[in-house]
């Protein structure tokens, strides 16, 4: 087991290197560089930058250096000093910027995931059992509508409803009164009051896919002879379904659960932007748009590492829950 994990981790190193390289490349793909965006941003505010200064800064930051040199600098910094570089935009170390946003990102991600799964899995099972009956159609329709509603639209409309009917201060995860307050019950309550919109938007959007897959997987299993065997044992129908076909239909989900790890980091970008959540998503988006390459690169690298870990985790989990995999029979 340990050897296997070790082997997989070794395998991941070239993947990660390749990802870091490509990520770094992609970030620089759009024309211009951080300073051009900076100039443009200043101009949008009515200021203008002196081209001579910009040129000097460009040299100062080494933005004009060849791709390889920049990449090399970045990578050696990470590898040897754990230094992710400095964000151009914030003029702060990238590591600190990411660390700052991590807790909320995790809270939002985990909450979303839990809600999604808690809604979707039972709904999918029920939908499969009631195949082509009214509950199936109702669940499907709701799921599809949730899936089809563009996230940003849902977020905006919910935010507006929150404002119009509940007088809620939209945006961010805390009301102004609690932002700076130390943690307390009231603050947690305030967080929950703000968390519901993004969680609902994100979770609902995710349910349809899971409902569909669960339903399909389960339908494939429901007619298998081993289900009849279970019935013949005299088990109640619920137990039959839960213990046998559902158990097997869940496997594909187990094998993807690790993948949702990286999604925590860039899945909610658009909603997070609309609702001004202080998570890593908007940070990444802003960094990409302003070509703040060390910041963007840092986040992408973390996401990539998480992906690799997620895959590994999935594989291990799958092996744990599915003996066929464990014993190499599937």
């Amino acid at each position, binding site marked *: 087991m340990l050897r296997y994990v070790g082997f997989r981790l070794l395998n991941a190193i070239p993947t990660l290197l390749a990802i870091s390289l490509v990520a770094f490349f992609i970030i620089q793909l*759009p*024309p*211009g*560089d951080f300073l*051009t*965006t900076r*100039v*443009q*941003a200043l*101009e*949008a*505010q*009515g*200021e*203008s*930058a*002196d*081209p*001579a*200064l910009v*040129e*000097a*800064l460009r*040299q*100062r930051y080494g933005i004009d250096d060849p791709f390889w040199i920049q990449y090399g600098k970045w990578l050696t910094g990470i590898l040897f000093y754990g*230094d992710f*570089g*400095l964000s151009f*935009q*914030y*003029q*702060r*170390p990238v*590591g*600190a*910027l990411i660390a*700052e*946003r991590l*807790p909320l990102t995790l809270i939002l991600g985990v909450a979303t995931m839990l809600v999604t799964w808690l809604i979707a899995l039972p709904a999918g099972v029920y939908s499969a059992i009631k195949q082509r009956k009214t509950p199936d159609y109702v669940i499907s329709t709701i799921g599809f509508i949730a899936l089809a509603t563009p996230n940003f639209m849902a977020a*905006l409309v919910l*935010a507006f409803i929150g*404002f119009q009917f509940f*007088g809620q*201060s*939209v*945006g*961010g*995860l*805390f009301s*102004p009164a609690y*932002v*700076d307050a130390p943690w307390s019950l009231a603050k947690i309550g305030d967080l929950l009051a703000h968390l519901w919109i993004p969680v609902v938007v994100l979770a609902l959007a995710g349910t349809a896919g899971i409902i569909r897959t669960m339903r399909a997987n389960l339908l494939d299993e429901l007619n298998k002879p081993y289900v009849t065997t279970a019935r013949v044992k005299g088990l109640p129908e619920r137990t039959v379904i839960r213990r046998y076909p559902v158990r097997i239909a869940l496997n594909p989900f187990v094998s993807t659960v690790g993948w949702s790890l990286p999604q925590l980091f860039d899945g909610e970008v658009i909603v997070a*932007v*609309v*609702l*001004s959540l*202080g*998570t890593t998503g908007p940070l990444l988006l*802003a960094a990409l*748009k302003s070509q703040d390459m060390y910041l963007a690169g840092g986040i992408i690298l973390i996401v990539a590492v998480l992906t690799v870990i997620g895959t590994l985790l999935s594989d291990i989990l799958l092996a744990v829950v599915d003996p066929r995999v464990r014993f190499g029979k599937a």
Partner: protein
Amino acid sequence: SDRREPLPGLDSTKKVLESPILTKKITAGDLPKLADRLPASPMVVQPIKKPGSFGGTLHRAQTEATDSGVIASFASSGLVEWSRDSSKAIPSLAETYQRSDDNTIFTFTLRQGLKWSDGKPFTADDVIFAIKDWLGNATLVPALPVWFADVDQQLPKVSKTDENTVRIEFREPFALFEKYLCHPSINIQIIKPKHYLEKYHPAYTDKAKVTAAAKKAGFDSWDQYFADRDNPWTNPDRPVMGAYQVAKAAGAQSGTASLERNPFYYKTDPDGRQLPYIDKIQVQVLDQAALDLRAANGDLEFQGNFLGYNSTQVYLRNAKAKGFTVQRWQAVGTLLSLCPNLSHNDRVWRSLFMTKDFRLALSHAINRKEINDTLLGGLGIIRQPMSTDGSPYGIAGGGRTAVDYDVEKAGQLLDGIGAKKRGSVRYYRGKPLEFTVIYTDNDQGIARADAFNLVKKDWAAVGVKMNVRPVDDTLYAQLRASNDFDFDGTTMIEDDWDLEPVWYVPTSSGSHSCPGYGLWYATGGKDGVTPPAEIKKLMDTWDELRTAQTDQIRIAAGKKITQQHNDNVYVIGLMKLPFQPVVVSNKIIGVRTDKPQLSFYYGREGITKPEQISLA
């Protein structure tokens, strides 16, 4: 709310002179007494409405975490500052201020006993440190900014005659220096807390030590660390002279910055109460939609910057219920315009664009009224870009050239320059008149895509084909800098362009209408496109303005530039927003009601001298 029971500060008129939160600190022994904090002669500010009471938090919002505009608006401080009508400089940190008759020597005498927010004395050394060790350090500032450069990009001579007197001497007259000194984003840069920053500067501290500290903090080099330490928006430790100091920076996960009052602030009201009245400012970073909803919800007590004109309707709808008013300030920098590339890389197009009749024809061909009716319900202000009438450089009746919709005239003009129609498109020297307008998409004010598409329709009617092409920010900047575009769609500023002349005079490759000439000017003719005589004339007039010895000369030169624009329509204007909404909570006292400009150059909301506003 005026009739309410006066708060303690007002009641026992001269007894409560400082904010209760400071009184508490004094009691705790953390702070010296008020008399020891104020300078010998504090600057007295006359409240706009009436003296306020202490306390409260002002809530604001912005869309970018890195935008430090709130510092310039609410916590700026300089040797001098704008007078209340923004017409001239008045001494601020300086008790007295003189400039020589020829605009070369500027002398400041500081108030006695000024203190930084950490209680350390503020002296002439802090100014000299900022100039010599920051501006004068090639690592920190690789190229001198326009607002502080003498001829040949040299640093002016700086000296102190005594602890409280600073003298800045330019070799050539610098007519705009005073204006720059008043600029709330610039004036704070000329004073720096030497006692705090010298720890991070190799001229004062061992370079190895400075570098090591920088590395430890996660920076590659000392200058980055210095810049970080020097940033009043992100570093709560940096001493300031302004009314507020950042207590928590906005980078944190909540995206919220909080500012707290500077206990050593040097201004008082006429009764001797130490300003500001309001204790705290909280700034939340929000997306535009959320910010608009916040404003509509009455959560933002006083805000103009970042508010969308298009959402005015929503603010107005909720204003009464949520207890705020929507003021209509003058909109600045919203005049949507099309800049033909006068220095086009293509010779034929360059000569065509430089032809006045062509520009006039294009201008006449636009049905501005229709665009205005469609997009702004007819409320927009139609004019060509240039200084407005009442402003120093404005000329009477300016901005009206060729704004009337006259397709026939446009056709005649085009025929006149030899751009004849073949089929539906005109040809000029064998080339079809087909152009691309680049612009960055931005729906904040006038929806650019919609406006340009309407123009496209109008121009098509006179045989000029235009492709409307929204481009990414970076690409936009790059295309412009490399002089590689036909038309640039942008919003123009009108007044105060002397502070950023590129809008009207091609002084650098950042020019919107002729970057090629701008580069030529900036490089002294080494690079770029050699401008024709009329553009050279524009540049000469600009030089005249910049080095004017007196204001008369400066203003005369400015008017000349305006006149030249008015005659030639170098940039084709469409229209600008009728106003800029500013939400003001009913609880706020002391906000100007005379519809001032919401302008970057006057510190935006800072034009109302926010240290004297208070929460009832």
